[in-house]
């Protein structure tokens, strides 16, 4: 049986389209990592409301009730500032390479039901990615450096077309 090999280790043998799929997967990883650290594409996420006797962040911390069924224990907030957009992790896990990946374009996004949740967060000042600004400048640089000249060129060719679809 074939031994599993990370896609990184077979990079040189991949077709350009397969490389673009890998680029999309890397971008997803970067977005999830940043989001769970509490940073959106425009900087720190807006903190949870402190209003009321039983604000959302406290209920999320306690994890009581039907709304928190399947909650990820590790992502419970310690304070209203602890925003990671992770309840069960289904929304972030649903980020996928989608659309027809070609040699010069890769699109990442999430299914409709999860995109609704992401959009609701965006409207509340917690955008993990937007059409206008899919990834941060640092992420763009990191990806370009990481993939080297070939993909850098592909990204350049795709400039203005590489997009992240939310919704």
């Amino acid at each position, binding site marked *: *049986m*074939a*031994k*599993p*090999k*990370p*896609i*990184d280790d*077979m990079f040189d*043998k*991949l077709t350009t*389209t*397969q490389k673009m*799929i*890998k680029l999309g*997967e*890397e*971008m*997803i*990883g*970067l977005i*999830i*990592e940043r989001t*769970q650290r509490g940073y959106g594409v425009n900087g720190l996420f807006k903190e949870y409301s402190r209003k009321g006797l039983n604000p959302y962040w406290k209920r999320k911390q306690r994890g009581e009730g039907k709304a928190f069924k*399947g*909650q*990820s*224990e*590790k*992502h419970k907030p310690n304070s209203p500032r602890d925003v990671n957009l992770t309840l*069960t*992790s*289904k929304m*972030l*896990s*649903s980020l*996928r*390479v*989608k*659309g*027809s*990946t070609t040699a010069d374009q890769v699109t990442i*996004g*999430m*299914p*409709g*039901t999860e*995109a609704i949740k992401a959009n609701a967060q965006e409207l509340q000042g917690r955008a993990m990615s937007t059409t206008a600004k899919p990834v941060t400048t640092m992420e763009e640089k990191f990806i370009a450096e*990481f993939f080297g000249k070939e993909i850098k060129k592909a990204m350049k060719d795709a400039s203005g077309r590489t997009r992240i679809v939310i919704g």
Partner: protein
Amino acid sequence: MSELVKFKKEYLLMVSRMTDQVFQLIKAGQTKDQILELLSKKDFKKVILADKEFKNAYNALNGLYGKALKNMDKFADISPNTLLAITKMNQATFFDKMAVDIATSLKGNMTSGILGGLSKNDIINGVTASLRPDQIDTLVTTALSNYTASINSLMADKLPKNVSYVYTGPVDKKTRPICLQLMSSGQLTRSQINGIVSNGFIERGGFNCRHQWRLLTKQTQMFDPKGAKKEAKLRGISLSG
């Protein structure tokens, strides 16, 4: 109103309609024995699948497959015939399972209800308690999730056979033993995954599973094989097989 909300509403109405039909028999003077005999002979699944209103609601639910298809990962082109075949197979499996579940619940609750002399509302409550509308949510979301996963699996054919996937998602006390096993297994090819659990690449941990298979890259998140092993040890779960 969404397709799923409509479907759940129709489910409740159908339960009410069918219970009502049985109570019409009581009103018409049928004895308990006669009704019980009728219930035992009746093919509930057939009746459910023939219910016009319910059929309309689940035809509308079929539209969700189209939406899921629109939003799924698409690594490469798949022939329309293959897509159609997968869609039809998934729909048939899902509705068949749904009809069997509803039929079992209806038959069981009606029989025990008639025997126990329960009221119509008590029987309806019994049926909806044994197959709650929120459980229908789970059935539908899991069916759709498996559907997109089966398409993804097809598209993963376009990647090298020995490319490694890892199981990502939370590790905590709610994580199922099978999910702990899959995550603690580390890097696996698609065929190795399906060797551990039959159809594991698509079905993962089962209903409402919070995990996903991802290509392993240096940026892969929520992949914690050590944590999975630790959690399994803590709960006394054997990961050997």
